[in-house]
């Protein structure tokens, strides 16, 4: 792409890899029994590009004037958040708490967080959530901001789950457009995975009323 320097490109790769590793740990692909003889693989959040949703939300949730006041103008929320995840990973590694060996090849250009096994990534998040990291060394807006740090660990999970199980994956080629320009291109994966039939006009499962009451007549 024109106008993007090598530095920016590798930053983008770093951010992407970090969030890929994140959503992969929260919703990995799995196998489900199809019938007596076979299983089917069910896509996880990484295969469904849910990390792009998480990054999109982080970049779009705060307006520019507020970002300025948070001193976030040149930084980005997704970069700061990726670095936060790395801080947790480094802490986990340095304190000898990892359960599985590091793997530096799974995500290209990723930081320490991406080298952890899936379960260790979630354990790194837990260290961050319990504030067992040095908050002073984090970048803005997380620096010395324990409430935001804790909140963000829930937010990252919540976003991954919402991105995966809502219609977002079905926005396909329009998924990163401004919401007014997104179009649902197919039936959403997460809905298929859960057996949700999607928007409906109605259902017939009417089983009567357990109680009814009469309205009082009210003047005028």
């Amino acid at each position: 792409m024109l106008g993007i320097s090598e530095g920016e490109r590798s930053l983008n790769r770093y951010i992407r890899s970090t969030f890929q590793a994140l959503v992969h740990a929260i919703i990995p692909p799995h196998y489900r029994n199809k019938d007596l003889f076979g299983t089917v693989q069910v896509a996880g959040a990484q295969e469904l590009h849910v990390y792009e949703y998480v990054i999109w939300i982080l970049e779009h949730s705060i307006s520019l004037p507020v970002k300025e006041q948070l001193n976030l103008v040149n930084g980005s929320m997704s970069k700061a958040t990726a670095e936060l995840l790395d801080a947790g990973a480094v802490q986990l590694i340095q304190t000898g708490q990892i359960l599985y060996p590091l793997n530096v090849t799974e995500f290209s250009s990723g930081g320490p967080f991406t080298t952890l096994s899936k379960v260790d990534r979630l354990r790194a998040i837990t260290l961050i959530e319990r504030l067992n990291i040095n908050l002073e060394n984090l970048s803005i807006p997380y620096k010395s901001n324990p409430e935001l740090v804790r909140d963000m660990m829930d937010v990252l999970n919540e976003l991954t789950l919402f991105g995966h199980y809502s219609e977002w994956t079905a926005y396909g080629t329009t998924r990163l457009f401004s919401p007014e320009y997104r179009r649902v291109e197919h039936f959403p994966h997460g809905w298929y995975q859960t057996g949700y039939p999607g928007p409906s006009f109605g259902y017939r499962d009417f089983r009567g009323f357990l109680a009814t009451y009469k309205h009082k007549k009210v003047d005028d």
Partner: protein
Amino acid sequence: MANLDVIVIGAGGGGAVIAKELGEKGLNVLVLEAGPWYGNKKWPNPNSQQGAQSSSTSEDLDVILYKQLLNKFEMNMNDLVSGRFRWGPADRSRSQWFRNAKQKGIIWQCSGVGGTTQTYTANCPRAYPAAIDQVWPLSYCELVPYYEKVETTLPVNFAATTAKEELFYYGAKKAGWNLIPTLDVTVPGYRPQPNAILPPNENITNLNITVEQLSWMEGCTLAGHCINGCPHGPSIDKIAKRSTNVSYVPLALKTGNVCIRPNAFVIKIITENTVSKGLHAVGVKIRDTWTGEQEELRAEIIVMASGSIESPRLWLNSGLPVNPWVGRGLVNHYMDWVSGIFDEKNLIQILGTPDVNPFVGNTCGARLDYPGLGTLQTVGMSPGLTASFYGLSESGYSFLNKPSMNDPWDIKGRLSGYELKEAMDSYRRTLNILVSTDDEVDQRNGITLDPVISDENGFVPVVTYRPTKKSIRKRSELTKMAADLLRKAGAKKVIWTNWPAGMMIHLESTMRMGFVVNQDCESFQVKRLYIADNSVHYNSLGGVNPTLTTQALATRTAEKVVEKYFN
């Protein structure tokens, strides 16, 4: 606009009601609403184009447009950052409005005509009498005629039964609770949800009429989209779920005395101090959310109905007199989330069907009430929202927090990996219970202004809530009751998510009656300034859903305004 009698700030749960009531009494009312208006011809592309300035006739309402906009897709409607129902400007290419929440949780409020009732599930219980009598400056008896009026106007009925309600009733009965088919709850028990959802059309099971045809007729179609926006009905004023934009707003417009202006953010209350009137409100300053233009508007009376965060924020940003209770005393029902997963075999025995199908029927069709503790309610939502509710926990990941043998749940905490997959694979066989606590007012909780950060509408609000010891105890009892009910209903697995305290879905009592406003909801310190939203509640109503009480009070306040200033 010449000679305005009343300006109402916000067209949500309370604002739409007081506007209709005042309009009916012949007053000239302007409603200023910060967000968009869905289903009005004057805004054919409400999220991408500015459209007209205001609308004052029900002839502008357009059900076809409404059905196009409320398209039932959960992210499109309810994404907190970019959804149609978010807290933010109509223009969806812009960011949401910033709030500084210094804790885990979410703040779920909507801008737009209808306010947060656009997404609400329309549960309309009355407060528990015991939470009002000898506690509020008003008695329960005084509220009853206003409850009745709102119940008739919306209207409110007991919810129809579908599979998930049947399962809940079955569990409640097995757990030893009695059916309490009443509106005035004085003893614990279970009952169908009193809600503002039109009962199903009599043809709901008539196979000669398609469900699509039904969706153009009067009555709930049991489509289960309450929370993502109900678009079903023959005309705007007959939409099945009675958000105020389809109930009170059409009625307000029909009076011929009410004009509603969306995309108008009130940034200041203007006051004057005269010898005869004292300090009193005379108008507002607004900012057009599309153009940024500012304007001053004047009226005899100003009513704040901007919700429990924005009403105190506006007070504080306007520099109105100091009052130690402005913004303070926030309650949010200290909510929690307990889910039961069932076996096909059991379900067939109990329900005659292999699934619970949480996406069918009223989103919250059944409840259990316990005066003194709070409530349990069934919740059935689309999968994205359901999953995201499993992602918020005070105790972190479930796999790192195994429950002990004596705990009534099998899983505790935030779901991920295998446990999440299992829960979501069982989505159709899941019954979720929302715990809503009779939480205690604490002056330390509430809304303050961020001393540094402001947006185009002034300093942004900081929202804080920590439950008191008593509230924690109550919630803990309720979650155990929920787990017990699910177990008795036959759940093979029970999940306690352990929500963080910052789940802001029912926000109340940040401008409390008796402290900031008097019992007629006029501010003590600024005359001619009234409040008609959840913020005036004296307490959390015992843990019941707040909106009906706000609407009853708004109805009453309209009478008081007329009695005092327009007789």
